[in-house]
Every structure is written in C-alpha cells, then in structure tokens.
C-alpha cells in the first residue's frame, strides 16, 4: 500500500509520469493505422485519486504451471528456436512488483499468428498457440519458455516487416501502472523500417529490447533473453523532517 490516511484525509502519493520525450506517443504518422484511431485532442489531466491508485488483484487463480511453457501445446513440441525469456517487473522506484500478472502472446517461428485475421502464407504450427501467462514471484521475477517468433509482413508500407517481438500485458498494483507493450530482440536488422518500434522516442528504444543472456542459456536446450520491465512508481520526493525524523 502506498497511500495513508491521516485525520480523515487521504494521502495518496501520485504516480510519476515518464518525461514526455521518453514516452511512446499515442499516434505516429508513419504507422498508418493511427491516423483514424489515435485521439487528436489534448488529454485532460486526471489527478490520482482512489480509483487511479488502486487496481485489481489478478494472480495465481488465472494461471496454471503449463501456461509458462509455450513450446508444449496440443500434445507435441512447437517447431522453432527454443528460448527462455525472463526478467524482473519493477516500478520506477526500483521496487520489485510481486504477484503481478504477466500475459504474453506472439507469432510462431514462421511469423504467423494463430488468429483469423492473420492469413499470410506462412505455416501454422499445430503445437504452438502463442499464448503464455505467468505471475511474478516475491522478487518480481518472471520467466517463460517459448520459441523465437519470426518476422512477418504487415502491409503498412512497401515491404514492411515487423521485427520479431513478443507482446506483453502487465498489471501492477494500480490503475496508473497498467502497461501493454512489445519486447524485441537485440540487433534486429528490421528495426530501421518499423514505425511501431520507431514510434518509441530514440532515447527510450533500448528499454524495449531484450538482452541475450549467456548465463541463463541452457546447455543443449535453449537460448535465453533477459528483459526487465519498469512500471510507473510513486513520487518519492522526500518530506521535510524535523530533528526527530517526523514529518514536519
């Protein structure tokens, strides 16, 4: 709990908003679908009251152990490069976010999603559905085994190909911390032409890219990629204190 009550008043520390030059804008002209969908008017500031500093508790009951292994579905093994994806979920104060629901989805090794609107001619894999769910442990750690997703064409511009990525959806403790994002792989040659990646301000793009991890790579089994996710934290501006250390 981050807030307190004091003589009937609610003291709710606001969640820090990332500096505007480091936030993904809601619309980006090179990503054509944003043209008619990204709101155009300036948003109205919403103070962080009780509805914003609270959030649903969604945990273990939504997740089964097998949800952390995307390589074993429908009674067989998925085709592709086996990878372990792991990391920590932190807030911007550096605190781990334990018991957080992490949902992931991705294309298969050929770059095809198991979805009715994805019909480009790459094969589906009967043993890969592309869905994973995990809950962070007490130290905010998560991990799942999957196969490395392929790149795929998407028609945004001539020869547009999405860099390989895994979609992540996260709940922290508060409505303000909700995050849906995409994890990329290091040194992808497709970054330069991808407007979804390049919509992220240049100074923050590295935060969306995982790191190859030799230390967690499993001998004779799977490569490993590490990706820490940072949700918004609260404003930690120190209070003025008197000599007793009490808040003045």
């Amino acid at each position: 709990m981050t807030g307190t009550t004091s003589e009937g008043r609610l003291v709710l520390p606001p969640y820090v908003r990332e500096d505007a030059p480091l936030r993904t804008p809601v619309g980006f002209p090179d990503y054509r679908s944003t043209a008619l969908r990204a709101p155009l008017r300036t948003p109205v500031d919403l103070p962080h009251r009780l509805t914003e500093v609270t959030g649903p508790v969604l945990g273990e009951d939504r997740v089964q152990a097998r949800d952390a292994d995307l390589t074993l579905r429908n009674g067989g093994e998925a085709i592709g490069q086996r990878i372990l994806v792991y990391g920590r979920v932190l807030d911007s104060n550096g605190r781990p976010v334990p018991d957080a629901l992490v949902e992931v989805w991705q294309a298969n090794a050929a770059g095809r999603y198991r979805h009715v609107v994805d019909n480009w001619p790459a094969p589906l894999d009967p043993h890969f559905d592309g869905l994973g769910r995990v809950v962070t442990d007490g130290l905010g750690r998560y991990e799942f085994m999957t196969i490395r997703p392929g790149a795929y064409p998407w028609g945004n511009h001539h020869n547009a190909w999405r860099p390989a990525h895994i979609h992540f959806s996260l709940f922290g403790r508060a409505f303000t911390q909700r995050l849906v994002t995409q994890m990329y792989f290091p040194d992808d040659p497709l970054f330069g032409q991808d407007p979804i990646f390049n919509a992220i301000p240049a100074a923050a793009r590295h935060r969306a890219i995982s790191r190859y991890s030799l230390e967690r790579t499993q001998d004779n089994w799977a490569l490993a990629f590490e990706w820490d996710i940072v949700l918004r934290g609260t404003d930690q501006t120190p209070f003025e204190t008197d000599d007793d250390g009490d808040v003045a």
Partner: protein
Amino acid sequence: MTVDPLDVPPDPATPFQPRSGRRGTGFLTEPLRLGTTPSATVGPYLAIGLSWPDGAWAAAEGTEGGIWIRGRVFDGAGDLVPDAMVETWQADPDGGFSSPEDPRGAASYPGFRGYARVQTIDPPGEFGVFTLKPGRVPDGEGGLQAPHVDVSVFARGVLDRVVTRVYFADEAEANAQDAVLRSVPEDRRETLIATPTDDGYRLDIHLQGDRETVFFAV
C-alpha cells in the same frame, strides 16, 4: 534490457573532480528513478493473449442489482472499431475498492471484482460489461467524487492505452459537484456521461471526430 542502477555512462564533458569537504554517505541523495518501459500497441492479434472467458463480469453473473454498461467504439471516419479492448475498474456500491492499495483498507463486496476486460469483436465494434453501479468515493480533499468507472481503451493503431471515465446521467447532482468532471470543458462533458437503458447504461467511445471522447492523461 537490463536495469542496472550502477551502469552510469562516463560523461567526458565533466571529468571527475575530487571534492573537498564532507564525504558522501554512500546513500542516494536523490530518490532512485528508473526509466519506465515504453508502451506499444496491442496490435490486431490481442485476442490470442488477452481473451478471458469471464472478462465481461466485473460482477458475477446474476448478482442482484447488476447493470450492463454497453457501448460502441468508433474511429475518426465514424466506422466501428472491431478489434479494440475495453477495460474497466471501479469502486463497489459502497465506494470501496477490492485492492490492498486503498489506504482505507481493501474492501470485499459479494460477487464483485470491480474489473472487466472485453473486446469489441462480437458484434463488431460493440462492448458490454456487467457490473454494479459504483458508490461515491472520497476525492482526497474532503469531498466526494460522483460515481464513476475508469476505462482504458487499447487497439491496433493506438500506441498507448487511452483512458476515459464513465459517469451516469441519473447522478446529475453528484456530477455537478465532481471536480474531475468540472475540469472538463462543459461542451465536452456529455462524452463521459452514460445514459440509462433497459438493462443498465450506454456510452459510446469516439477515438476521434467531432464527438471525440474526453481522454485523460493519468
């Protein structure tokens, strides 16, 4: 990417200068602040990862006093958006939250989760959430907020979630006192106010256009 607070890049513009006087304590003098992970669109295939059979039920099916909040999502051309996700979060009828983050203590209301997630797939462009009408919640400054539901909208073509609120047309008195609603230009407030229907309330969401919904920076 790995977050390592010790990974400080060298700055050639300001070479190391030993300082005289009091030595540092070794503790941070400024609060640690890590850069947040940038958001991205949910894309067109969100149904793979984000579909919940019980998503629509912020209140359990059959809960007494349950209401449906229904609406449609439109784009700037006035077309229905058939691949958005709408999430709602709200207080229970007593104004409590089933969240340990509530400094008044986590509330528990029978059959009530307070959170819903639905996609605008079937019928295309439409959503419906079964819930209980929220009670009034303190505004933290001695007053009460009007009953409201916080809403996030995610979609292909939207790179960061957009946030809005649902208020209720039959709460005119409370709405008139609500500080958030009053901060919205008067001629746009109606984009936040759901109208009563046979089984609950209805409010359409316009991502763009003359009737663009009021979205909030949170």
